[in-house]
């Protein structure tokens, strides 16, 4: 009985974490794939309204919004207030879920739906480097930062960096979300 009361007072935040993480994960994957397709297939259109530019500008807002979505959902769904520390934790988990989900969709896309995308993007990056007339040393250094498609290092690079950066950024946004949507003030 006492245990039930405790659970009602502190409902699980995992649904909110999943919702925040999934939304950000899906949007980021779509933006990332769209930007890759535009990069490899893109001739300059001459249009002043450049979709790639808009995607790039929006990516920081989208990447950081998971914590806000998750904390808002948690506060509104259960009509509760909670400390900002809990908001930071919810945001951190939402960021991690977003990266994991984005990585899984990315893997499915590049292994099953369009297996040639990664190689095409890799080739484009190499061609882009060659066009910059670098020395061999510079070329080797830059190549070291472009992991071969499908390799473990490519996966570790993208998922590892994503987990740390998205986790940190969404922890901050979760903290802000908790302050806005779940604060006891006002």
């Amino acid at each position, binding site marked *: 009985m006492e245990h039930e009361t405790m659970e009602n007072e502190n409902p699980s935040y995992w649904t909110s974490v999943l919702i925040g993480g999934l939304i950000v994960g899906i949007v*980021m994957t779509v933006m*990332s794939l769209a930007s890759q397709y535009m990069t490899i297939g893109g001739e300059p259109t001459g249009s*002043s*309204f*450049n979709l*790639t*530019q*808009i*995607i*790039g*500008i929006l*990516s*920081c807002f989208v*990447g*950081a919004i998971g914590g806000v979505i998750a904390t808002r959902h948690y506060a509104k769904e259960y009509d509760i207030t909670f*400390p*900002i*520390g809990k908001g*930071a934790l919810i945001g951190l988990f939402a960021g991690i879920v977003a990266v994991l989900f984005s990585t899984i969709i990315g893997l499915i896309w590049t292994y099953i739906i369009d297996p040639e995308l990664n190689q095409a993007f890799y080739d484009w990056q190499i061609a882009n*480097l060659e066009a*910059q007339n*670098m020395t061999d040393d*510079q070329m080797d*250094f*830059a190549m070291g*930062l*472009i992991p071969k498609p499908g390799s473990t290092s490519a996966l570790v*690079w993208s998922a590892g*960096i*994503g987990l740390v*950066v*998205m986790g*940190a*950024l969404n*922890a*901050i946004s979760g*903290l*802000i979300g908790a*302050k*806005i949507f779940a*604060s006891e*003030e*006002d």
Partner: protein
Amino acid sequence: MEVKAQQLRLYIPLLITSLILLMIGLGPGLFHQSALAGYSWQHKIFDLLCHQDPFRSYSLNGESMAICSRCLGIYGSFALLVLLMPLIGRFFTVINHIILKLIVVAIVLNLVDVLLNALDIWTNTLHSRFLLGALFGGFLALLLTNEFFSKIVKIEESHGT
């Protein structure tokens, strides 16, 4: 007037995280490394979160930063104001509902700026993008000030003698 520091266990990690993000965002120039046309570990880290267009980014020591000028404004002002929170809490009263409205205004201003620039109605600059980003990041940090440093008003009791 006293200022009460609260939740320092949360404030310190927030300060460190925001300063680290800013330092990485400042790019290879801060570490006296070469960017090699945008290929550096700093650029790689922010690859997910920023377009990193060198024409829309400041340079440091001749190297393009790992984040654009708008993102630099956001991360820079956020980190700076988190650092200054103890002083802000001491000398200013932060009214949250006003700050919330200012955050919305800053978001709208940034979106309008992006849209008008993309439609060639007006041309933004490195500095204008930096300032608009700084408004957003700064207001976000201000919103959190009361959580960590709030004024304590001591009420003197009079005993009627």
